[in-house]
């Protein structure tokens, strides 16, 4: 094993174990976890047999394996950026809803506004009349 392979395998192993250990990963779907593991496997293969990558590159019409890896990286990066942007918007919307709720509830309390809840469905202690 040459040094660079050792470094690469070490790094990916570290990433892999971090991912496994993460407590927040419980919510991630099994499909995504399996896809991630498959990806790791492909990376390992590529590290140990660069020839194979070049062969694949030639099949799809790319000269060198490194070029193919670069193209794939570019595509993945684009996906990542878009995904990250959408997730950021989603979480911003959630924060805004939460902050709005706080602001409205606090103001309703300060001005002692009793909210109009239909008398028919007024369970004791329930203060959530919106969906």
């Amino acid at each position: 094993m040459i040094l660079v392979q050792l470094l690469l395998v070490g790094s990916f192993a570290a990433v892999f174990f971090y991912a496994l250990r993460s407590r927040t990963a419980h919510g991630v779907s099994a499909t995504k976890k399996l896809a991630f593991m498959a990806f790791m496997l492909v990376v390992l293969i590529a590290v140990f047999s660069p020839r194979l990558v070049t062969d694949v590159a030639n099949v799809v019409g790319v000269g060198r394996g490194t070029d193919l890896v670069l193209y794939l990286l570019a595509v993945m990066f684009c996906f990542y950026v878009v995904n990250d942007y959408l997730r950021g918007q989603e979480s911003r919307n959630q924060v805004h809803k939460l902050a709005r709720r706080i602001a409205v509830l606090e103001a309703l309390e300060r001005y002692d506004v009793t909210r109009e809840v239909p008398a028919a469905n007024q369970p004791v202690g329930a203060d959530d009349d919106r969906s």
Partner: protein
Amino acid sequence: MRDVAFVVPVYNEASVIGDVIADILKVTPHAVCVNDGSRDASAAEIVKAGAYLVDHPINMGQGAALQTGIEFARSLPGVERFVTFDADGQHLVEDAKRMVDLLEGGDVDIVLGSRFLGASVGASKAKKALLRAAVAFSNVTSGVRLTDAHNGLRAFNRHVADTIEITAPDMTHASEIVELIARNRYRYREVPVTIHYTEYSRSKGQASVNALNIAVDTLLRKVGRQ
């Protein structure tokens, strides 16, 4: 006009908000000011002037502030009609009154103010040209035919207040409201209003570069919904 609530998003407007609130309180007791994380004394001025203060814990943008104000206002007992009003003193309460009166008949849900049907006091030629371009763009993308797409003065009934959901936090919300009019099939009407461009409102107003931001965001929303 006791059943009308004015919703005013406020961001760093301490020097003018008091006068704006005083004008509103002449016609209705319901002035709802949403302080959007101002760094100046806006909140204190709002309280001093006698308006409802709804305080965003963080700065969330004008669109978010409008939505918050509408949600608070619709909880106020006896409020059936709503007006959105800018905090910088560029709108006239008389215009808002006329718009609210139009809701009376019950055949429109939302009345929008237009600078181009009315008088624009002190707007530059470039600003007018840009706004016209924005209108053409908005008409094409939303299918709602308006002469002014970015006017903060609007009056609407409870149906709109209960169903509207503005998610665009920043200045894009004006275009989003136009889109919501199309999507929720609100019956709309446009009336001329006078905009008072003062030195103050000009300095606070949007930089014209922002038009590009709004256009791109609008197109992205369109693509995203398909």
